[in-house]
């Protein structure tokens, strides 16, 4: 099914949790910040949310800045 990650459409399997999607991309859930359908997601909730068709996810991280 198609979901939108960081503004781009991607194909993901059904029944995937947000944490699953993050780990699939070789990312450590502890190092990212997630927005799910315009709402913030706490780290502790990442494993409990199952992604649905057309969901919009923003996966962000802290970088250097002034």
């Amino acid at each position, binding site marked *: 099914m198609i979901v939108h*990650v*960081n*503004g781009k459409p991607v194909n993901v399997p059904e029944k995937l949790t947000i944490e699953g999607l993050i780990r699939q*991309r*070789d*990312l*450590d859930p502890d*190092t*990212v*910040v997630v*927005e799910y359908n*315009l709402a*913030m*997601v*706490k*780290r502790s909730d990442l494993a409990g949310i199952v992604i649905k068709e057309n969901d919009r996810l*923003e*996966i*962000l*991280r*802290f*970088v*250097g*800045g*002034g």
Partner: protein
Amino acid sequence: MKDMLKIGGQEVNSRLFLGTGKFSSNKLIPEVVKASGAQVVTVALRRVDLEYEEENIAAYVPKDCILMPNTSGARNALEAVRIARLARAAGCGNWVKIEVITDNRYLLPDNYETLKATEILAGEGFVVLPYMSPDLMTAKKLAEAGAAAVMPLGAPIGSNRGLKTRELVRILIEEVSVPIIVDAGIGRPSEAAEAMEMGAAAVLVNTAIATAGDPVIMGRAFGLAVEAGRIAYLAEPGQTAEYARASSPLTGFLRE
């Protein structure tokens, strides 16, 4: 008795705030933090590049630092609020530097959108430090809206031009009830010292340290300068005069 900086109810050990952008290697960051004594450290929030492995900057910021995410990238209040809420949800504390910019040449902040964002985020319990163009009325309104401090620029971001806005910053220091932190444009330790001598509560420095020949030693220089400037301010510098006033006695000269 130590002269401690208090922001948002928290005591901060150092009046030098450190930005983490532009370092040639993130490994320098913990060394600069140590050399400079900085405790408040800013970071930005960006989309992860899903193609390439990238470093997590939070891993390089020592645990006893206060992390202050900025809302860089925000073009208006709503975008700044969105970034701030996401950063807080990441569990790195509730400090936020509001940065709202649509001017791509000078990167001068949008005071109006910054004020709107401050009102919203202060109401949600954030410790808000807005980056702004030194305008007295905006600064007063930011303080009234609940900003923990106000951060006027000294000169455009990354320009290393020093305290170009010194006259206005001086007025803000005199007239605004919350701490004034000079942020942006400080290029040398002497400029940081000047800001502190004027009565600034702190300074935020990024480019001048990150792009120095030796960032770690420059970090140390800035730490010392900020301390010297603050102590000088507390010691009440003497008056300036139009004409000379001799330092040695004017009587008892050895002469015919």
